[in-house]
């Protein structure tokens, strides 16, 4: 060995002066551009700072010690720990019916036809049977729609049965109900309180924007959501209610107003999500859509506002940044199913549709509503657990999602932090394997990784904020730093 040996890593040119190197365990280091060549050619002087830094972070080794290999293998194992918790998120589509007719959804139906669009008691029971076959020690059950509160009887049944079974089996369970809260009544709140249910709702921004995005009879979606949030917090506790926002063409002009709205409503997190190209949204993307570049401009502006609020002492985490930063800066795995390698679809999550069909992800379900059922894993009434979760459909998705084998991903420094979403790639390009150089998925993640790193490197105050998001606690470490 010529002085030292290389350990596996990838690099990406970061800017004119610096190159970022990331090892297999996701630990990163910035090198001066010239140092990369010297490092790879075994020309770094032993004992210099760069040499020692790369050695300590496990980019090189210079002795027969097994310590670097033991530590690296352990770190890689910790990063892929999500694989051990096979299928931990179980989404139940309680009803396809909804009294909203949001432009970006349209999978849901404004209909009174309960027979046709509601999940039956038997379907729910069979879906629960499957969910409880999952070997994961902790289960998360998410009830969504349509609007699940329109079929509260089923909500009640699933929550009660799921909690009873979890108690019998000594498993941890968390129940989230995703609702626009427009139909929330006091009896429902008492039920949620008694069963420790979390609520997730939608707030797209200030009243005019929210109502424009989310039409309903009376044009009062915002007023009902805000009132629902207030009442739910009063009964369930402040932190039991979270909100998601969806970015529409109309949102792009108003990042500041949207962030202000979240601050005003007292939320501690905001998830800046681009419009997903699924369901009917795909068809209407030409009229309501925008480019990824436009979304990223919006994201940067919104993130600036969020950081500004945090710097002034008001804790507000951006959920996507929080997820990526946890992957970039900590040794821990994260359970977000849309960005894993292999993909979380089917491994980390399963969706049980109102009609008993099972999908690997919500996006697969929406694609099926459009007539393309290729990602349907089976049906709770016809297929066994093994046929659904060990079948060909799921295997195809997982095999296509190993980013390590995707051209363009394989060489990217950010790969250990990233992942793939085959259903997304299929929905946008017709192929489960992305063409990376032109993929919007790549464009988004590559840009955000670089943007977060630039902020982190530039400003110690932002470092503190990012770390507070990773710890998910408002207590600042400012005093020490």
């Amino acid at each position, binding site marked *: 060995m010529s002085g030292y040996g290389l350990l*596996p890593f990838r690099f990406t040119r970061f800017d004119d002066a610096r190159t970022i190197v990331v090892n297999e365990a996701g630990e990163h280091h910035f090198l001066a551009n010239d140092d990369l060549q010297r490092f790879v050619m075994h020309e770094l002087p032993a004992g210099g700072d760069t040499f020692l830094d790369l050695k300590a972070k496990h980019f090189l080794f210079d002795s027969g010690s*097994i310590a670097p290999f033991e530590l690296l293998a352990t770190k890689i*194992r910790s990063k892929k720990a999500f694989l051990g918790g096979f299928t931990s998120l179980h989404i139940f589509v309680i009803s396809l019916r909804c009294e909203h007719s949001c432009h970006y959804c349209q999978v849901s139906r404004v209909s009174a036809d309960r027979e046709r669009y509601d999940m039956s008691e038997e379907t729910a029971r069979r879906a629960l049977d499957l969910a409880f076959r999952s070997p994961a020690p902790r289960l998360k059950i998410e009830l969504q729609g349509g609007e699940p509160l329109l079929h509260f009887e089923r909500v009640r049944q699933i929550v009660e049965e799921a909690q009873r079974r979890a108690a019998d089996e000594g498993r941890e369970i968390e129940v989230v109900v995703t609702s626009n809260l427009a139909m929330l009544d006091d009896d429902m709140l008492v039920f949620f309180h008694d069963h420790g249910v979390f609520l997730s709702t939608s707030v797209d921004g200030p009243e005019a924007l929210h109502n424009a995005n989310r039409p309903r009879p009376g044009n009062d979606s915002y007023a009902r959501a805000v009132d629902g949030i207030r009442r739910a917090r009063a009964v369930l506790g402040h932190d039991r209610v979270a909100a998601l926002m969806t970015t529409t063409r109309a949102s792009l002009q108003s990042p500041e107003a949207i962030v202000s709205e979240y601050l005003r409503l007292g939320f501690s997190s905001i998830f800046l999500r681009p419009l997903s190209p699924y369901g009917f949204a795909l068809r209407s993307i030409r009229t309501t859509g925008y480019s990824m570049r436009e979304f990223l401009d919006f994201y940067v502006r919104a993130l600036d506002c969020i950081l500004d609020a945090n710097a002034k002492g008001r804790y507000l985490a951006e959920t996507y940044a929080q997820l990526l930063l946890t992957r970039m800066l900590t040794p821990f795995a994260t359970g977000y199913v849309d960005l894993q390698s292999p993909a979380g679809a089917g491994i980390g999550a399963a969706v049980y549709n109102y009609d008993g069909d099972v999908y690997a992800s919500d996006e697969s379900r929406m694609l099926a509503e459009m007539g393309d059922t290729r990602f349907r894993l089976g049906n709770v009434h016809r297929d066994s657990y093994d046929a659904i979760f060990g079948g060909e459909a799921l295997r195809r998705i997982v095999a296509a999602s190993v980013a390590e084998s995707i051209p363009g991903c394989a060489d990217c420094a950010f790969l250990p932090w990233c992942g793939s979403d085959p259903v997304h790639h299929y929905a946008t390009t017709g192929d489960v394997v992305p063409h990376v150089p032109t993929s919007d998925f790549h464009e988004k993640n590559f840009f955000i990784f670089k943007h977060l790193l630039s902020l982190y490197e530039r400003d110690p105050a932002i470092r503190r904020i990012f770390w507070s998001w990773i710890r998910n606690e408002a207590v600042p470490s400012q005093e020490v730093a």
Partner: protein
Amino acid sequence: MTITVDLSIYSLDLVLRTCHVFTSRCFVTPRTVANGRIGVEFVARDEKDSLRDLAGAFSNALLDSHLRAVIATETHTIRELLVAQAFCEADLLDRGDIESDEHADPRGIAG
């Protein structure tokens, strides 16, 4: 614009991998030129894209691809071993004396 690459310096595989990266900026067509050389034709997707910048970026990207190949060659075996070790309870690495014990103490830790 066509850039000619000497295949005695960069392998065909490496040239093609590098071409792939440029497919977002250009339409890229590799063509055989003569013995041991390959020509790569670039047509920019955006007419404003400077040919000089493009040529420079491609040369640099070839060098980066070369570095990646060097890294891959040197670390290939270690990478496979590490990933296997990470997913396997059994010990694949030669873990030396770890599986001995404090009484035998083959490393002489106790002095």
